[in-house]
């Protein structure tokens, strides 16, 4: 047992921890400075709000994904679930699979509130099904949600017949395109959701149980944590956020597409992982995820803004993602060494 020495050195590690935690943030700021120097339009408030609105969809899902990954799980189904919830919301909003913009006004359908409710309930229910498959059937999350990835997509295509469902009433569209002051509504939704998630993870027993399950599920069980309940809950949470994101996305595009969200799982998981959450569970934070999502959003926007060729863009994005995490690691070793 470290005795007096420990208390003397206690300060050190904490200051380092501070730097460590902000590795991705520092990298994000550096990136923003570079882009600002390269193109004056980058810091244009309109552009910054654009970026924020763009990241709010994947960001919402990434919030839920943070819970899942903290338990050492993974959810590959989010893109498909997004499409499924979006399609359900659209069908509910319009009262059927019709794609006419003329039908806007929603007289035929059940309106935005029913659509929102439907998206959230379907998302949470699909999440619950996946969670139960993980806990009851003992199938690894990777397999369950890979199954989900094709199942929800198949169902989306089935209910929509492949085509999009478009044209919502003004209230619904407001959730995607409206502003409160200068701030886009999706950004506000994302911000509120992020704060709530942060509070839940940091300040509730459930949140701490999520960390415990991810840190060592067996030990958590031995300590009296109801591991299965926690696991089902995190899949419900990510499903719920898929529903919310689907509603916002449909509102923003004024359309629900059957092909929405393809490949989102990787974007969302990268946001979480770049934010410092460990895929082996137990370590991570919502703040990190928000930074991770912002980093990806800024990167894509900055490259587009600078008219970098789309092929080169892909190479640069890949390199910078790796560098961002490498930088974070490097800071951590420096901070400690």
């Amino acid at each position, binding site marked *: *047992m470290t005795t007096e020495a420990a208390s003397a050195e206690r300060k050190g*590690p904490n200051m380092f921890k501070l730097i460590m935690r902000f590795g991705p943030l520092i990298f994000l700021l550096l990136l923003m400075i570079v882009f600002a120097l390269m193109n004056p339009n980058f810091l244009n408030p309109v552009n910054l709000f654009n970026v924020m609105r763009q990241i709010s969809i994947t960001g919402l899902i990434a919030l839920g994904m943070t819970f899942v990954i903290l338990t050492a799980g993974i959810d590959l189904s989010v893109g498909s679930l997004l499409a499924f919830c979006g399609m359900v919301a659209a069908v509910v909003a319009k009262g059927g699979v019709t794609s006419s913009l003329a039908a806007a006004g929603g007289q035929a359908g059940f309106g935005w509130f029913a659509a929102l409710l439907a998206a959230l309930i379907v998302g949470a229910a699909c999440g619950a099904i996946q969670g139960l498959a993980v806990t009851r059937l003992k199938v690894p999350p990777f397999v369950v949600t890979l199954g989900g990835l094709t199942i929800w997509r198949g169902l989306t295509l089935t209910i929509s017949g492949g085509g999009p469902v478009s044209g919502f009433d003004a209230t619904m569209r407001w959730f995607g395109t409206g502003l409160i002051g200068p701030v886009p509504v999706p950004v506000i939704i994302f911000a509120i959701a992020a704060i709530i998630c942060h509070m839940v993870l940091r300040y509730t*027993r459930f*949140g701490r149980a999520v960390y415990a399950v991810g840190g060592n599920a067996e*030990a*958590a069980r031995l*300590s009296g944590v*109801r591991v299965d309940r926690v696991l089902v809950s995190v899949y419900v949470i990510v499903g719920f956020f898929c529903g919310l994101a689907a509603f916002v996305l449909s509102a923003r595009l004024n359309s629900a597409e059957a092909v929405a969200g393809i490949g989102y799982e990787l974007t969302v998981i990268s946001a979480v992982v770049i934010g410092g959450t460990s895929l082996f569970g137990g*370590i991570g934070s919502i703040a990190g995820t928000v930074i991770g999502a912002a980093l990806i959003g800024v990167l894509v926007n900055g490259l587009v803004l600078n008219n970098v060729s789309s092929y080169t863009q892909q190479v640069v994005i890949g390199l910078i993602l790796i560098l961002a995490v490498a930088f974070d690691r490097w800071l951590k070793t420096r901070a400690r060494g």
Partner: protein
Amino acid sequence: MTSGTATAAQIPAHTAAQPGPATPLLAIEGLTKRFGAVTALENVSLSLRKGEVLGLMGENGAGKSTLLKILSGVQPPTEGRILIDGAPVTITSPQHAQSLGIITIYQELSLIPTLSVAENIFIGRAPIGRLGLVDWGRMRREAREIIARVGLRIDPQTVVSALSVAEQQMVEIARALSLSSRIIIMDEPTSALSETEVARLLSIMARLREEGVAIMFVTHRLEEASGICDRMTVLRDGRLAGHLERGDGPIPIPAIIENMVGRAASELYARPAERATPGPVRLEVRGLRTTPNPEAPHAIVLDGVDLDLRGGEILGVAGLVGSGRTELARAIFGADPVAAGTLTLDGTEIRPASPADAIALGIGLVPEDRKHQAIFAALGILSNFSIAALDAYARFGGLMDEKRERADLAEYKRMLNIRMADADQTIDGLSGGNQQKVILARWLARDPKVLIVDEPTRGVDVGAKAEVHQILVQLAARGIAIMVISSELPEILAVSDRIVTMREGRITGELPAREASEAKLMALMALGEKGQ
């Protein structure tokens, strides 16, 4: 040790719990547990009364942990029943056991490595403040008090993975004690602790006994068991082998051993045979220093260690928990970076930059943290056994000579009396002590020039412990230089030719084993304490 005045009463195996006013707090009747074809427990009955310490004794693999896991709701029994206050209960889960007032400290550490000490103590019951949110301040304050009670002085915000095994063990004990409970079950809580911590734990146990708490206690350190236990139940091969009760004095150790192994104890506890005189210096350590390690910020920093290790000699290293013994071993082994100092092996200076280098040079290390640093839980016993000697078993540039591997394993199985079904079963199906023996075999198969063993008999039963000591002596006789780190002074005294003591990363004393005693060592271990 013990004065043999107590009576050892042999009680028939099937004594059912007495009904009436003396109803025991906990009773087990006809408990049987099978894992597939393996019978871990067979028709075991015992009882635990309010305000007593019951020792559960037995060799490695006797079924002790299995019994305790059943009581903790971790595993269901195959047959038999459990009664609490005379009423039968079915314990369905660890939560359920806790709600029945049964708290368990498991043999394998069961903390959450990624969380802080405070959170581990309050897992699932974090103090709630305003708005129903976790009150972190209160949690830290209370955690500090709780760990102080067991004498641990670390920041409760420390992440558990940064603690030594001993510290983790103390945190587990602290947590168990902070839960209000009627029954405390402890599976080898002292195996990682040094004398000071053990003494503190025993005094806490005595106090709890006064308060009416019933304690069931497993240990392979017979002195401490004999000192604290009011009664003992002994298991052998999963069956009840006897009950012992404290008379006027502590339960005598020979009686315990006799019950455990089923024969007289005399030859078991003999001091290893005399050895040839040590040869020339094999390993010379000069001015060894380390810097704080990023991976283990709370590990002790070596502060200029000088040491000579002779061929054919067993050097014991004694010290309190956190004295830097493990650090010393890891630094020599190339597992941690060295900041300054020289290592000389057989006259040539060496600089092992990794364990692979050290092993290639002929240095071996049995690490102290079996679960995290030695065991490949998902792999078979054979793979676990030969992993450090892959090059020795490989032919034609890489094909494994499995026949020879199996033959050698069978040899060590016999030599170390390892209880296992077959070489391909996964090692996590073995009892803790038998796992330790496989790890020892791993290094014996390597046949190193210098072998460092860090807590080599952690969780190993008396009989096997003596065997391990015997083996170390035999190895030394072959000219190998051996360094034994142990928190059990009797072990150090039993096996060493020469003993050094450490404190805070420095060597504080050296004695030939002939002149050493527990008291002298304790004095040296406390030497050089800052500000005293």
